[in-house]
């Protein structure tokens, strides 16, 4: 076994100097949620060292955005985290509104909250489905999650025209108003979601195999989570009370009394359960929002759509996306195109602690820990 540098470092750190097996999981691997590679150093089945390798899906998103006008950067944000395009739009539009100082009318704020919470619902449901798929439940939870997701995607298609690439929010509001009957249809979809959650909990929550596979696996200690900048359900599962909706009070989230679930151990089971409980909270928010939304203008009349030239300056707009704190940092030099367009990708930052969570576990745990971190490679590689 030629001693590659990794093996030297592994050996110097006093790890058993048995025959170390170098295995490369990915980029073409059934459970890496996209093109993502892990160089895993194995001692038997125990992980000794894990180096993540990504960049296979890098599409030069930020340089393209610096060439295009502010408006034409919006469709690209759909492709960042291709599961939750609505929340990506909102984060970008929020930072441009801060940069250019554009106000947003009441009805548009309600529509933004409704679409963001609907996105959070099916993102967490899909996460639970993929996590169980990695654990071996042959697609059953995933199919149930996808069945609910289809209903919500139909709502988005009737509202914005496309199921996944919505390109719906504009600076100062939304592109078009809710088609009539959309609110009633959305209420129907929402009413069907809580029985789906009960079905999910009946299928999985007390499942001994799920508990055995995920308790004490991939523990993320509090301090490491804070220092590594992990955000979103992963951070809250380690017991840190940080939800951008409660911290920044952006949009009209103050009007919705929702609670933030926190875990204790920060292992895979906590990350799974925190997301299930967050879905319950989102349902409450949506119930209230769908009731309170009132007719009115959906876009600020003064907001310019084309050749928007915000005055020179910088702005950082961030929202609580389903995967964590998604932020856009824009620097404007007064011209029609942003001078600097920087995305804060929660998936990538949550991924940096993958090695610390995986060391000491076996191969089958690595797959589950990666699944519980909930990454989307479009956002990791940008």
């Amino acid at each position, binding site marked *: 076994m030629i001693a590659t540098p990794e093996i030297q470092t592994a050996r110097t750190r006093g*790890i058993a100097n*048995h025959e170390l097996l170098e295995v490369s999981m990915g980029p073409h691997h059934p459970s890496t949620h996209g093109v993502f590679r892990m160089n895993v150093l194995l001692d038997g089945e*125990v992980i000794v060292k894990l180096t993540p390798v990504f960049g296979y899906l890098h599409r030069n998103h930020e340089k393209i955005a610096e060439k295009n006008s502010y408006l034409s950067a919006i469709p690209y944000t759909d492709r960042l985290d291709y599961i939750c395009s609505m929340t990506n739009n909102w984060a970008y539009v929020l930072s441009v509104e801060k940069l250019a100082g554009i106000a947003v009318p009441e009805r548009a704020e309600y529509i933004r909250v409704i679409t963001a919470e609907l996105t959070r619902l099916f993102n967490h449901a899909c996460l639970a489905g993929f996590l169980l798929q990695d654990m071996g439940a042959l697609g059953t939870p995933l199919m149930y999650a996808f069945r609910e997701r289809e209903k919500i995607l139909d709502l988005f298609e009737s509202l914005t025209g496309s199921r996944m690439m919505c390109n719906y929010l504009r600076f100062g509001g939304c592109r078009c108003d809710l088609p009539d009957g959309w609110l009633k249809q959305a209420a129907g979809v929402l009413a069907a979601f809580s029985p789906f959650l009960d079905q999910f909990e009946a299928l999985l929550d007390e499942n001994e195999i799920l508990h055995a596979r995920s308790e004490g696996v991939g523990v993320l200690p509090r301090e490491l989570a804070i*220092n590594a900048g992990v955000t979103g359900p992963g951070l809250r599962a380690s017991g840190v009370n940080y939800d951008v909706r409660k911290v920044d009070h952006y949009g009209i989230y103050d009007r919705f009394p929702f609670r933030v679930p926190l875990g204790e151990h920060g292992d895979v089971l906590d990350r799974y359960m925190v997301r299930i409980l967050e879905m319950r909270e989102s349902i409450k928010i949506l119930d209230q929002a769908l009731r309170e939304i009132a007719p009115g203008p959906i876009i600020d009349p003064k907001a310019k759509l084309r050749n928007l030239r915000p005055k020179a300056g910088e702005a950082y707009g961030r929202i609580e996306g389903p995967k964590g704190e998604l932020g856009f940092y824009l620097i404007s030099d007064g011209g029609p195109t942003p001078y600097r367009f920087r995305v804060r990708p929660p998936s990538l930052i949550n991924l940096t602690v993958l090695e*610390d969570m995986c*060391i*000491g576990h076996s191969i089958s745990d690595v797959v589950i820990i990666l699944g519980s971190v909930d990454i989307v490679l479009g956002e990791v590689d940008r």
Partner: protein
Amino acid sequence: MSNPRPATIVMLNEIAFYLTAALVLIFAIAAMTLPRLVHCAVCAAGAFASLALIYLELDAEFVAFAQLLVYVGAIAILIVFAILLTNLQEADPQVRRASRSWVVGVAVAAILLAALGLPIITTPLLQRAAPAATAAPVRDIGEKLMTTYVLPLEMIGVLLTSALLGAVVIAMREEPEVKTKVTRPTTPALERQEELTPR
């Protein structure tokens, strides 16, 4: 049992016996001579299985299936595990030879053959005719095991359990730190974190 055997069937049995005996010998020789160890292991398993065939020809079904279960099912796997864990790919040819000439080899072989063969031929046991096969051989074996031969059975049981415990103790002592979860060595992030947190 089956009706008295016409001549043709007896002759067929002779041929069948010689065939399986040849099979056993071929497998055994192959197991000794093949260069790659895994092939040797497979040939050994083949030899055990064809030995079971011989027992079947002698209508000793219980012994044949016990042989199949114990030898092919367990001991062959044991050999294979041994090969896997010690990770020996090729049989190393530099084993020192006791002496150059083959005459010594033949002499030793002849002595060994005599030592084994003579007692088998001279013992009175073989002179007695084979006992008539009974209707339910398995039941008889069961009764004999539990009545006349119960002491050897229990002794073997004790022997096997002690061997098992011995194996567990050896395995346990050999690599305690690998079997239990690797105690968390410091990782780059944790190291960075120690410096970050003020003393």
